[in-house]
């Protein structure tokens, strides 16, 4: 089975999952890992718990909040585990495409396309110059 794990400093991952489900309905294959919320919970232990629950033929797409941040860094150290795909810079438009494409046969291509959606979805709306022409049938 293929799963998506959102991982963040604090509660962004949980909030991102909540917002995604508001738009797309329930998606139990998407989980959230919120780091540093409780001082007595260690991030490496959280990661171990996730990987322990993962079956040998499962695949996990991990989406972290910040490239260069500690959450992503700790996941980078786990990349020898071939079940993991690691992505940094989560956004809602990217997540929507990942959820829509989760059954895709070519996972790396699907991930690249989802990341493109994330890039395209980032806009400075004041500076959009080109107004699309009205379309007809």
């Amino acid at each position: 089975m293929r799963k998506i794990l959102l991982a963040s400093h604090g509660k962004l991952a949980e909030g991102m999952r909540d917002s995604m489900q508001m738009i797309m309905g329930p998606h139990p294959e998407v989980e959230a890992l919120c780091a540093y919320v409780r001082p007595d919970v260690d991030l490496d232990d959280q990661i171990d718990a996730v990987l322990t629950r993962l079956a040998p033929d499962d695949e996990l797409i991990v989406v972290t909040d910040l490239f260069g941040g500690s959450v992503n860094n700790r996941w980078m150290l786990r990349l020898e585990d071939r079940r993991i795909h690691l992505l940094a810079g989560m956004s809602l438009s990217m997540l929507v495409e990942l959820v829509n494409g989760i059954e895709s046969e070519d996972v790396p291509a699907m991930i690249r396309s989802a990341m493109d959606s994330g890039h395209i979805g980032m806009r400075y709306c004041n500076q959009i110059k080109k107004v699309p022409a009205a379309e007809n049938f």
Partner: protein
Amino acid sequence: MIKLTRLDHRLLHGQVGCTWTQNIGSDCILIASDGVEGDDLRKTTYALAKPVGVKLVVKTVEDSIRAINSGVTDKYKLLILVESVRDLHDLALGCDRIEELNLGGLKQREGTYPISSTVFINDEERELLRELLRAGKRMKTQQVPTERPVTVTEQLLDSAHR
């Protein structure tokens, strides 16, 4: 071919662009609304926000009926959006091709009551929906594709009140 005719007060938004369009494989969205057709700002906003690779057409309800009945829309996998029960009523009764209706969202207003967790109607709208059922149109409430659809019947409309 008409793939989905949806009532949603927000018209084209996240749920529609990210789930319904993909779920039904739509290649063309028609917004049937006199209000949007006459409002350049709203028209532009929807045109900018539409899903990539999907054609967006905005027409008045009357022009929408004419276009659908002429057959020019047959080559598309069409997703039709209306924002009010009145528009849904007029459009569906004007087009034999529209047989099934999706009630996605209608916000809570003064004098309204729920017929699903996201659809609120008033007495006048209840009568319009009743007319649609009596004209043989099938109707379901369903916000997103993963949610279980619920068939709307006259009994369901009768049991819904303030």
